[in-house]
C-alpha cells in the first residue's frame, strides 16, 4: 500500500477543491488563459499551431444565441479540465499517468508516465486535454519567464489543467513550515482565479460549508456542463440567463430550447 492510500484511510478530512465560473460576469477577456499559460509553463504558440493543435489549458469558447441583430447575443464560456470525480480519463489510461488525488480531489496528469496514446483525449467529453504536437521551444529571453515550480512538458505527451499544482505544493510547503497541516482558504488559489478582473471565477473547498464556493454551489442558477454524463465534475457554471443555460447545458431537452428566448 502506498502512502497516498494510507492517508485516505485515516479519519482526516481532506479538502475537495472545485471551481465556479460565473458566466454572467465573464467578459471573455482571456486573462485567465494568459495567466494559466504563464503559470504553468505552457509552450509558446508557433505560427504552425492552430486553435486545434495549440496548448490552452484554459480555453475560451464564444457561444452565440444564433439570432440576427438586434436579438443577437453571445456568451464566453471558459472551458478547462472539469476535475471529474468519476474520471473518464483516469479509467482509460493504460500507464497510470492520470491520478485522482484523494488529498485534494484534483485530477493529476503525470507527463513522465504518459506515452502519448491520446486515449484520455478521446475519453474527455470537455475537450480539455492537450497533446504536445511540437517540441516546446521558448524564444530567446522568454525562458526567463519560466516558472521554477512547474516542469515544462516534453513533446509527445498529454497535459491539462491541474488547478495550478505548483501553487498547491508551494502553499503546502509554507503551511508545513508554520507547523500547519491544513491550508487556509486564501492560501491556495489557481492563477486564473487570482487574475480574473471581474471575479467570475471562484475557487475553494467544496466540502467546507463555510467556504465561499460551498455557498455559491447552493445557488439555483448553478449547473454542471454535461452533468448527465455522470462524470461528476467539480467545476460548476452559473448564469441567470435562460438562453445561456440552454446553449451550454445538455441537461435541458430540445423541446425547452425552442421556447427560450435570449
Amino acid at each position, binding site marked *: 500500500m502506498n502512502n497516498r492510500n494510507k492517508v485516505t484511510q485515516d479519519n482526516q478530512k481532506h479538502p475537495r477543491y472545485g471551481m465556479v465560473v460565473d458566466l454572467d460576469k465573464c467578459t471573455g477577456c482571456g486573462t485567465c488563459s494568459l495567466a494559466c499559460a504563464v503559470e504553468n509553463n505552457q509552450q509558446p504558440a508557433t505560427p*504552425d499551431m*492552430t486553435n*486545434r*493543435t495549440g496548448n490552452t489549458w484554459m480555453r475560451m*469558447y464564444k*457561444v452565440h444565441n444564433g439570432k440576427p441583430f438586434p436579438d443577437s447575443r453571445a456568451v464566453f*464560456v471558459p*472551458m478547462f479540465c472539469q476535475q471529474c470525480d*468519476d474520471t*473518464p480519463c483516469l*479509467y*482509460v*489510461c*493504460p*500507464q*497510470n499517468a492520470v491520478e485522482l488525488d484523494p488529498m485534494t480531489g484534483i485530477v493529476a496528469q503525470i507527463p513522465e*508516465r*504518459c*506515452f*502519448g*496514446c*491520446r*486515449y484520455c*483525449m*478521446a*475519453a*474527455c*467529453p*470537455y*475537450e480539455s*486535454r*492537450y*497533446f*504536445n*504536437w*511540437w*517540441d516546446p521551444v521558448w524564444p530567446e529571453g522568454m525562458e526567463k519567464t519560466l516558472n521554477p515550480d512547474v516542469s515544462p512538458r*516534453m*513533446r*509527445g*505527451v*498529454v497535459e491539462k489543467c491541474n488547478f495550478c499544482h505548483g501553487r498547491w505544493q508551494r502553499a503546502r510547503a509554507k503551511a508545513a513550515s508554520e507547523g500547519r497541516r491544513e491550508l487556509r482558504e486564501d492560501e491556495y488559489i489557481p492563477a486564473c482565479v487570482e487574475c480574473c478582473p471581474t471575479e467570475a471565477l471562484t475557487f475553494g473547498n467544496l466540502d467546507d460549508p463555510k467556504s465561499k464556493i460551498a455557498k455559491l454551489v447552493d445557488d439555483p442558477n448553478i449547473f454542471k*456542463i*454535461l452533468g*448527465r*454524463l*455522470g*462524470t461528476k465534475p467539480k467545476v460548476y457554471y452559473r448564469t441567470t440567463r435562460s438562453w445561456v443555460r440552454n*446553449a*451550454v*447545458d*445538455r*441537461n435541458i*431537452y*430540445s423541446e425547452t430550447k425552442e421556447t427560450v428566448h435570449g
Partner: protein
Amino acid sequence: MDKKLIVRGVTRMEFKKFITYLIPWFILLGIGLYAMYLVFRYGLNHTNMDNRFAFGLWIYFDLAIIALGAGAFFTGLLLYVFKRHEFKSVINSAVVIGFICYSGAIAALVVDVGQPLRAWFTLYRPNAHSMLAEVTFCLSLYLTVLAVEYVPIVMKNRKLKQLPSFLVFEFKLHKVMPLLAGVGALLSFFHQGSLGGMFGVLNGQPFAFRETVLVFPSTFFLFVLSAIAAGPSFILLTTWLVSKISGKRLVTKDVLMSLGKISGILLIIYVFFKSIDSLVWLNKTSPAVGFSAADHYGFAPFGIWILSLEIILLGLVPGLILINKKLRARTSWLLTGAVLACAGVALNRFVTTIQTLSLPTLPFADFLTYTPTWEETAIFLMVIAYGVILYSFSFRYLPLFPQERELHTK
C-alpha cells in the same frame, strides 16, 4: 539458388519478373519509411490529428486490419481445436496474413504514440481498468504466438528442411500447435473485444458509450463477433486474389465455400446482436444522458444512412448471400459476399473511431472533419506494402497452400 528454394512440385515466376513486380511496393515502403523518420524526428505535428481528433487514419487502420486478421486465429481454432481438417489447406496462409496484420498494426501504433520508448510502462505498471492496457498485453502476446506459428512454416522451406535439427524442431512445434491455437484464440478474443470495449466504455462520448453486458460493454462482444465473421471472408478473398495474381489453383473450391459459409452464419448472428445493440443505445443509453438520435446522425455526411449501410447492405445482405448454398457455389456471389462482409467490418471500425471524434459532445462545440496528411497516408501505405512484400516472399518460398502441389499435378 532461387530455384532451389522454391517449394518442390510447384512453379513460380522468373526471379527477375518477381523482383520487378515488387519494385513499386518497395518504393511505397521507402516513402513510408521516410515519413516515419519525419514523424519520429519532428513529432506528430506532421499529421493532421489535433486535440479533439486525437485518433486518425492509423488507429482506424489498426482496428480494421486487426479485425480482418482475425481469420488467422479463427481458422487455427477451427482446424486445431474443432478439428475442421479442410482448413489445413489455408492455415499457413492465414497465419502469415495474421502475422502481417498484427505486426503491421503494431508498427503503425509505434508511430502513432507520442513517446513510443515508454510503451513498456504499460506492461510493467499497467492500469488494470484500462481497456488499452488489455489490448497491449493481448496484442503483444498474440503477436508472439503468431511468430511461433510462423516458424514451422518457414522451416518447411525446401532448403531449411534439409537441416535435421530444424526438422525435429518443426515436428516438436507442430505438436504444440493445438495449444498455441487455443492460447491464440483466447488472447484474440480478449484483444478484439477490448478494442471494441475501448470505445464502449467512454462514458464521456455518448456516441460510443454502450450498456454493460457481463462486466464488459456490448461493443466488446460485437467486436469479437464481427472480427470472426469477417476474418474467414478475408482469408477467402486473399486466397482468391493470390490465386488470380499467380494464375495457379491453390485450394479446392469447397474450402473457399466452407470459409464463406462460416462467415455468413456468424454475420447473421452479428447483425442480430448489432441491431439489438443499436436499438438499445438509440432508445435507452443515449437519451438517458441527453443525446437523441438526431444528435448523432444530424451532421452531414454522417446521416442515419451510415448505420443502415453497415447493418443491412454490409451485414445482412452478405450474410444472406453466404449462407445460401446455391449462391455460395457461384464464385461471383461468393466473392461479392466476402467483399461486402469485409467492407462492413471496415465501416464499423471507421464509425467507431472517426465518427465518434467528429461528433461534438459539448453543446457548443463544432462538428469536425479530418483529412490525413501525406505522411499519415504514406505510413498507412507502407504497412500495406510491407504486407504485400512479406506475403509475396512467403508465397514464393514457403508452402502456404499445401493443396497447390496436388492441384498442380492434376
